[in-house]
């Protein structure tokens, strides 16, 4: 943003205090961006040490992630599940809960959607698809909502419980798609029966990107409105700051916890629905492909702001889209993207310590005396 130069001070002196609220907001944008760049810088050093060119690396990221119509669509078609998965982390985070088991809600939501789709075969998509989506959301919501309930009623740590439940969910999913729900015709890749064409979610017209993306973006906007524009969101932020204080003030902490974890899980369930209905066409073990874990990273990078999740998810999807070309052109292992993610993640978290350190962002500085 602006530097601390004389003209700016002059503006303040003239009494224009519209910059005061802006300063606080700017801090929340400038610091993460700077931290991300610092993460890139450290990663560049990491590459240089091994004689690899960071210029080539980021050039390939641009080329394969954003540089052409194909690249953009490649990136966007990977974005949808990341948006949902990140919401599953960001919403509970408003209450101070670190939920890292969204993967479980994704796979179970996907299995639910796939199984229901088999039952609803022959129905019109207009009826069946919303039902499948709602069921997936419901199952996902119950799964992560249970994590919230365990936290609130039993004091079970949500981070560990959600992670254990993700392992259990994946086992359940494997059991179901290879056992009771298996389509006997799915020979070497055990799956539920394929969804009929009417029950498939297609691509947006003219795009090679399915409808999960706009729905995910709407989900982010909805979550932002909920947090930023409703009393529920306000109450959640208070409870997130201090549970006991919130209870003393008579806020329904229990319902807030159940509501926010449940809603987060519902979004993750929707990711499963779109994976099944738009990508795989049936539920199978490929549902567990790690979107839930990438979602954690995205939510933290976005500082749990649902609107910020959108660009961050697109950026991360771009990195994943370029991972293949980087493997082929630079002879770097596929884990390179993971290393980059690790550096950036740590840099962003490190920047937490810088909040309030710069007078530039202090509202008082911009307020008229």
């Amino acid at each position, binding site marked *: 943003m602006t530097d601390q130069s004389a003209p700016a001070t002059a503006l303040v002196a003239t009494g224009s205090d519209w910059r005061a609220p802006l300063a606080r907001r700017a801090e929340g944008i400038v610091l993460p961006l700077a931290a991300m760049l610092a993460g890139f810088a450290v990663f560049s050093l990491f590459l240089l040490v091994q004689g690899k060119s960071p210029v080539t690396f980021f050039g390939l990221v641009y080329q394969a992630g954003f540089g052409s119509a194909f690249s953009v669509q490649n990136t966007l078609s990977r974005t949808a599940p990341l948006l949902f998965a990140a919401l599953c982390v960001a919403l509970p985070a408003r209450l101070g809960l*670190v939920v*890292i088991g969204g993967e479980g809600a994704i796979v179970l939501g996907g299995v639910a959607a796939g199984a229901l789709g088999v039952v609803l075969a022959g129905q019109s998509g207009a009826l069946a698809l919303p039902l499948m989506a709602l069921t997936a959301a419901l199952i996902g919501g119950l799964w992560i909502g249970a994590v919230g309930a*365990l936290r*609130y*009623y*039993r*004091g*079970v*740590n949500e*981070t*560990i*419980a959600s*992670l*254990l*439940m993700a*392992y*259990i969910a994946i*086992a*359940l999913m*494997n*059991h179901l798609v*290879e*056992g009771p729900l298996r389509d006997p015709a799915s020979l070497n890749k055990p799956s539920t029966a394929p969804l009929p064409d009417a029950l498939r979610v297609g691509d947006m017209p003219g795009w090679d990107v399915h409808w999960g993306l706009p729905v995910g973006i709407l989900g982010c906007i909805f979550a932002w409105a909920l947090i930023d524009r409703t009393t529920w969101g306000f109450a959640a932020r208070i409870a997130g700051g201090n549970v006991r204080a919130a209870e003393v003030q008579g806020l329904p902490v229990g319902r807030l916890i159940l509501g926010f974890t449940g809603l987060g899980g519902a979004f993750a369930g929707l990711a499963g629905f779109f994976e099944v209905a738009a990508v795989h066409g049936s539920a199978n073990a490929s549902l567990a492909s790690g979107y839930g874990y990438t979602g*954690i*990273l995205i939510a*933290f990078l976005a500082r749990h702001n649902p609107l910020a999740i959108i660009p961050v998810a697109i950026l991360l999807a771009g990195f994943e889209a370029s991972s293949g070309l980087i493997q082929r052109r630079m002879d770097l*292992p*596929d*884990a*390179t*993207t*993971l*290393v*980059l*993610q*690790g*550096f950036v*993640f*740590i840099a962003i*978290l*490190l920047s*937490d*310590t810088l*909040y309030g350190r710069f007078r530039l962002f202090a509202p008082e500085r911009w307020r008229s005396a």
Partner: protein
Amino acid sequence: MNDLGLWVIPLAILGGAIRVSTPFLFVSLGEVLTERSGRINLGLEGTLVFGAMAGYAVAYLTGSPWLGVLAAAAAGSVFGLVHGLICSLPRVNDIAIGIAMMILGTGLAFYFGKPYVQPVAPDLPSISFGAWSDVPQVQAALKVNVLFLIGAVAAVALWWMFRATKVGLIIRVVGDSTDAARAMGLRPAMVRTLATTAGGAFAGVGGAYLSLFYPGSWNEGISSGQGLMAVALVIFARWNPLACFGAALLFGGAGALGPTLQSVGISQGYYLFYAAPYVLTLGVLIATSSTKRAMTGAPGELSITK
């Protein structure tokens, strides 16, 4: 070879407990050390995986599995140190840093581990305690790796350290109350950083066990979440190193249940049997947690139990 019938089940669970428990044991001991000082390090999963890679690579390059173990411990302590230093800064969330370190550790392990998927590194030695028996299954179950024994000794040593030594007392005071520690003239951030560093070394050794003894090779699927489960196991064990040893054995045994049941003909729903350790951990967590009282044994400054 003898046909032991259903006796195979308890025997295999015993054998599995000894074989599979060591990584759990080391990671949970490391985590106890860290958590007793008032921090949580969720990144030990990444440390474990990196330790597995580093240990395997060094053992392969030098021909000595023990140098591999040392390398894994050194690498683990570096990861712990980084975590500890970062978390010493104000307003940095130790849980989130742990998740980030997990991603970084795993990523670096996979990145540098590529050339070591193929080569065969020398294994750590084991000691046979089953020579008294002429049943091969018993002999196999009682083939105990040296690291398992070292882990058992370390558990007792840590227990004693927390109970009876000045170092143990300092860690406990720092973990229970930052203010009290400051009043005593201690430097909480430094104590925590050192405890996290030592904890990381333990986790690294746990990883070396995976790659250098059981299953005894390096690949990207070497850890199935042992590092994370061990963190849950610490809560189960109430931050008591001796209880960690018991809990690790229990989880190792639970992990052996699935394959063993299949070997005696109970083969349906094996995914559900395989989930046994996770279900068990969750069940224990639910049973032992409470909203009303702080958990017995829980360090007062620990973010996850506050």
